[in-house]
């Protein structure tokens, strides 16, 4: 049996014991992430209903450097999960916020914010330096990508139909749904009700990626013997590549990915875990889909490639440090 599970993990894994193990691991990730995801969607819905984009735009300076670097720190005031980022960013760009500012905000805010920092610190209590490496790397990548963007792209890069058609992506579908349910002129109490309603809808938008991510994580844990992972996981470059790929596929929310990364702490190099937690919230399957709904494909691919290279480079350096 033991030999079998090494040589044919897939075959031997289809048995009752592994189904039970799959359930336990899946549920443990979901349960642990749930409070953070709920807080994140509530904050995001609150901001959606109570803070206007005009206000945010007003405080952005015209200077390229002055607008890119603070934009990367805006998440500290504006703690959104990456799942809610793309619709906001598109609206910001439509309202005249420079593309590079929006990009650096979009890349950094899902990571450099109190909720995610707290979740990461929880998950990596034992290795607190990983938390700082994550935040630092995210800051560097977001600023660098934003500045490069200001060099390469002068226009808004928005898709033409995205400008006229204000609900081009499924994820913002609930914004106009809510307007049907609740009246337009809102008192404070109905604004609060609407916030909770929005949060509920956003929970489903994000939650499904979390659950699917947790499922893939649980499957990987069961199917891959650690000994096999260890051989790749400690390689300074290969481990980073594997984790970047993993981050792209699982599309897990930035408030929860730290817990998934923490489950790999014994088998993967620190650089690769940081890469997972930096690249995932910035560019992943679900973000790319939402992005190419709103922006030109050429720009989306450019952005993905730049973020990929910057993260991989930083992670490689961390592994050699």
């Amino acid at each position, binding site marked *: 049996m033991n030999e079998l599970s090494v040589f044919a993990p897939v075959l031997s894994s289809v048995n009752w014991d592994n189904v039970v*193990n799959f359930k336990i691991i899946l*549920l443990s990730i979901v349960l642990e992430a749930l409070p953070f995801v709920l807080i994140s969607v509530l904050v995001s819905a609150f901001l959606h209903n109570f803070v206007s984009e005009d206000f945010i735009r007003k405080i952005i300076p015209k200077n390229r450097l002055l607008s890119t670097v603070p934009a990367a720190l805006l998440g500290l005031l504006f703690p959104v999960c990456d799942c809610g980022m793309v619709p906001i960013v598109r609206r910001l760009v439509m309202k005249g916020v420079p593309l590079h500012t929006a990009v650096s905000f979009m890349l950094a805010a899902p990571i450099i914010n109190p909720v995610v920092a707290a979740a990461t610190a929880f998950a990596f209590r034992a290795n607190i330096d990983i938390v700082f490496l994550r935040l630092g790397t995210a800051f560097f990548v977001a600023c660098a990508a934003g500045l490069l963007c200001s060099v390469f792209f002068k226009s808004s890069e928005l898709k033409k139909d995205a400008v006229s058609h204000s609900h081009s992506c499924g994820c913002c579908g609930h914004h106009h749904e809510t307007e049907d349910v609740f009246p337009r002129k809102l008192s404070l109490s109905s604004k609060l009700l609407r916030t909770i309603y929005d949060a509920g809808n956003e929970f489903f938008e994000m939650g499904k990626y979390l659950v699917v991510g947790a499922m893939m994580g649980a499957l990987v844990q069961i199917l891959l013997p650690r*000994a096999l992972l260890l051989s790749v996981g400690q390689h300074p470059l290969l481990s980073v590549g594997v984790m970047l790929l993993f981050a792209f596929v699982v599309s897990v929310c930035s408030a929860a990915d730290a817990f998934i990364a923490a489950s790999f702490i014994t088998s993967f190099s620190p650089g690769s875990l940081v890469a997972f937690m930096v690249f995932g919230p910035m560019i992943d399957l679900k973000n790319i889909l939402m992005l190419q709904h709103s922006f030109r494909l050429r720009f989306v691919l450019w952005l993905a490639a730049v973020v990929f290279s910057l993260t991989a480079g930083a992670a490689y350096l961390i592994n050699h440090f």
Partner: protein
Amino acid sequence: MCKLKARYILDAHALMRAAILLGFIALLAWLVNTGQLTLYIHPRFAGLIEIAGWLLLPMAVLQALSIVRAASPFEQRPHAHSHNSQWTYLPFLIVLILAFALPGNTLNVNMVNSKGLNSQLAAPPATTYEMSRPLAPQLRQMSRIDVTDRDYAEIVNELQFFPQEYAEKKIRMTGFVFRPPETPKSQFSLVRYVVMCCTADALPYGILCELEDAAGYQDGTWLTIEGVVQNATSEDKTIPLIKITSLQQVAEPEAPYVFPPSQ
């Protein structure tokens, strides 16, 4: 005028969402009230889980309230343009079905292989404990080391990294039987899962034991053993080996995992 007559819309999305949110609230309440929460996460998260339950409640109520609603005159067919199908709820349903339908079980011995036993890992997993040895003075004084749930991970690490210091010490511990590949007939490892945050990060910690009729105990059997710590060599490393003097087959403990206390 038929236009003024109120039309009512049954919102299938709201129905599904309300049902799933209620399902999650029921799941959390059930896990907390039956004490099963520790099968999944470290007890220190219990408070957060309760908060999550209370946050879900108003969301569920608001979704439930919008299941049936009057259509506004301007509204077309609801969700005519929605890109979301009911498939998006499948992941949530899978979680709820797995949670309620499968027995509340513990990670079983199958996982040890994919996780890798502490003694097999290349790098010691607990860089956490790196050379801070709070228990060492206490353990040295004891005539017999009684391994408690609380100190399990610490003590196993002590034995693993400093086997010479504990040679000829008496020890009493509980765990389940596991045999890594190529274990001699007279040996097995006595193992427990150590959980830092959630069961997803559970790591099997074990110590090699020696017993003449070791073959009589299947993998996954829970034992309380008494024995003497000895030193053996494996791949040029000194490792601890407990020579079992007496043992007792026991039921799986109610708290099968060990949770190292928060620092």
